[in-house]
């Protein structure tokens, strides 16, 4: 059943076996998994069935760090959450992602890959990427790339699958919940308060607002927060203000270790080989892509982190040094400074003036000038970085409040120098394989660092780590079953529980960890 909570007359006092707060990927997956075991599930979402600016406004945050985007522009506060605009890019994490790596501070999950592996198949079904594995041995022959890296010392190919069109979780999996007699979905239900009994360490009830001055309460045996990677921490910090940090925050871990997946074009490949073309294919309504990464043994031996490295053909315009140098010079002039390598940027600009003019024409006049701007001249690598977790990268409550009186977020985020060093080290190893196998030559764009790690840096908008999973409350917020330390009936679902985020988009692993959580909750019934 689906109820618009704005239609509830008078303050309601609801009861449930389980109350799931948030109907995004995690919340919808969890409700679906639990409905064959629990008879009375309440699933709340702060939005309706469609995007609404006034509701979205509640995600507004203040980003202290330059270049880090406001989550108001990346999260979606309505049924289905961010799956309403994701790319559906899925791959499983690797075994090494779960390990404690001596060279990666704060790494190590309390569960291993084998604990999660059984749930990946079902997770793929939720993501509609099907159960036929992500194994390169299966897919590379179909892509005719099985020999591409034969003899490589450091690199390997991995597979990403994406459903076409992308799976909008409420659109695809919501109907089963709406039809179920065991699940009651309340839309326009924004959680505003929580009652916790420190004596028996249990959450007794929560309150939610339907944006019309009415507040309703829900009593349940168990509560699960599935608000999203930032909202989970925001609400938990808010609740902890009321309960003196007894909800998993005794050691000030909530909101810390915040990670994202920075995306960069930090290297180019020059190749005369046609082997780097056609790295993707369509297969039964799915987009299959082979991407490069380092092998686990390489990561261990070289003590570096991984990169997700798909390669895409790029034209003259996209590869232009002149355009990049033009922007650097323009910024330097505006700041009345002389940039590093001034002469080089100037010469890039002058010798590449045709592409600079092309850029100006495209931007100012929405037209193209030169035919050769579209000529393929190499390959770009729109890479995704694994960011290592640091305590200083964090979100915390600001003094500004939203319309329901809950503090908005401040976000402090930076890509540490060690992560930048890992990036170049990993790229160098990949470049050595390209050269050794005569696949091409890699060019590292270090001279563009100021822009690559500045205004040119993109993000996966994968907000991870803020309620991290750990063996101990000293180093985490939730235990290996995603139960908040210091409580006995309060859980978190979503990638906020990831201690490390790999170089892989998180949604498949969000679904897998949530199915694992569901199994645990079913066993407790």
């Amino acid at each position, binding site marked *: 059943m689906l109820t618009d909570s704005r239609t509830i007359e008078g303050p309601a006092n609801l009861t449930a076996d389980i109350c799931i707060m948030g109907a995004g990927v995690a919340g919808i997956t969890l409700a679906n998994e639990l409905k064959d075991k629990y008879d009375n599930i309440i699933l709340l979402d702060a939005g309706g069935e469609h995007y609404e600016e006034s509701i979205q406004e509640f995600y507004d945050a203040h980003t202290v760090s330059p270049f880090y985007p406001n989550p108001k522009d990346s999260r979606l506060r309505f049924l289905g959450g961010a799956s309403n605009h994701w790319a559906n890019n899925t791959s499983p994490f690797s075994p090494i992602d779960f390990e404690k790596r001596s060279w990666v501070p704060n790494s190590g999950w309390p569960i291993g890959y084998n604990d999660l592996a059984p749930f990946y198949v079902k997770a793929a079904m939720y993501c509609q990427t099907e159960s036929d594995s992500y194994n390169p041995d299966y897919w590379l022959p179909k892509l005719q790339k099985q020999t591409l890296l034969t003899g490589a010392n450091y690199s390997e190919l991995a597979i990403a699958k994406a459903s076409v069109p992308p799976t909008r979780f409420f659109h695809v999996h919501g109907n089963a919940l709406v039809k179920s007699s065991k699940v009651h979905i309340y839309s326009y239900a924004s959680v505003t308060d929580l009652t916790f009994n420190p004596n028996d360490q249990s959450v007794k009830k929560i309150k939610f607002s339907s944006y019309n001055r009415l507040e309703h309460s829900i009593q349940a045996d168990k509560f699960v927060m599935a608000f999203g990677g930032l909202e989970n921490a925001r609400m938990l910090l808010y609740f902890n203000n009321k309960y003196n940090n007894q909800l998993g925050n005794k050691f000030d871990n909530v909101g810390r270790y915040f990670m994202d997946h920075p995306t960069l074009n930090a290297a180019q490949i*020059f190749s005369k080989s046609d082997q780097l073309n056609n790295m993707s294919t369509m297969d039964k309504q799915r987009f299959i892509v082979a991407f490069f990464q380092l092998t686990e043994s390489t990561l261990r031996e070289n003590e570096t982190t991984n990169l997700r490295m798909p390669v895409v053909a790029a034209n003259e315009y996209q590869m232009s040094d002149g355009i990049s140098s033009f922007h650097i010079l323009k910024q330097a002039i505006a700041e009345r400074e002389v940039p590093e390598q001034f002469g080089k940027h100037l010469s890039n600009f002058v010798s590449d003036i045709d592409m600079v003019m092309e850029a100006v024409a495209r931007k100012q006049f929405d037209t193209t000038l030169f035919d050769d701007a579209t000529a393929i001249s190499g390959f770009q690598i729109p890479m995704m970085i694994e960011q290592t977790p640091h305590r200083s990268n964090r979100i915390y409550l600001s003094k500004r409040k939203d319309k329901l009186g809950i503090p908005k977020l401040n976000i402090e985020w930076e890509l540490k120098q060690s992560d930048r060093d890992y990036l170049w080290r990993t790229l160098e190893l990949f470049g050595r394989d390209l050269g050794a196998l005569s696949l091409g030559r890699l060019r590292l764009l270090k001279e563009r660092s100021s822009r690559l790690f500045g205004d040119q840096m993109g993000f996966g908008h994968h907000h991870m780590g803020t309620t991290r999973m750990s063996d101990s409350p000293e180093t985490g917020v939730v235990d290996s079953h995603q139960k908040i330390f210091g409580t006995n009936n309060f859980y978190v679902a979503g990638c906020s529980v990831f201690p490390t985020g790999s170089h892989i988009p998180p949604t498949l692993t969000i679904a897998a960890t949530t199915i694992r959580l569901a199994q645990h909750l079913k066993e407790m019934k």
Partner: protein
Amino acid sequence: MRSLSRRDMLKLITASSTVLGLPLSHFTTASSINDQTLDELVCVHRAWLKCEVNKAEYYLASLPQSLLLNADSLKQLISADFSQGHIIYVNGLMLSRTEVAISSYYIEQFSKKPNKV
């Protein structure tokens, strides 16, 4: 100049492939080269001088000459450079030590010819 632009780098790699297939003795007999490619070779030569103590010709002389005179074996030599980490960056481009040495040697020989540089 853009030192080593994407287009010109492709040309350089193409040129290098051709050059690598030729006996070294041919290098000194090259009689013409366009200014742009010359600039790029100079850039590679500078990268060699920045990274190496000895001149390129001494490095090349230290290699078995039979390897240098055969395109396939030279290709293997370059592959081995990459595998063993014998790489030199030229404006961010990862080139093998041998590739850079050959280009550097070429420019040295070219500069000895009158009226060329």
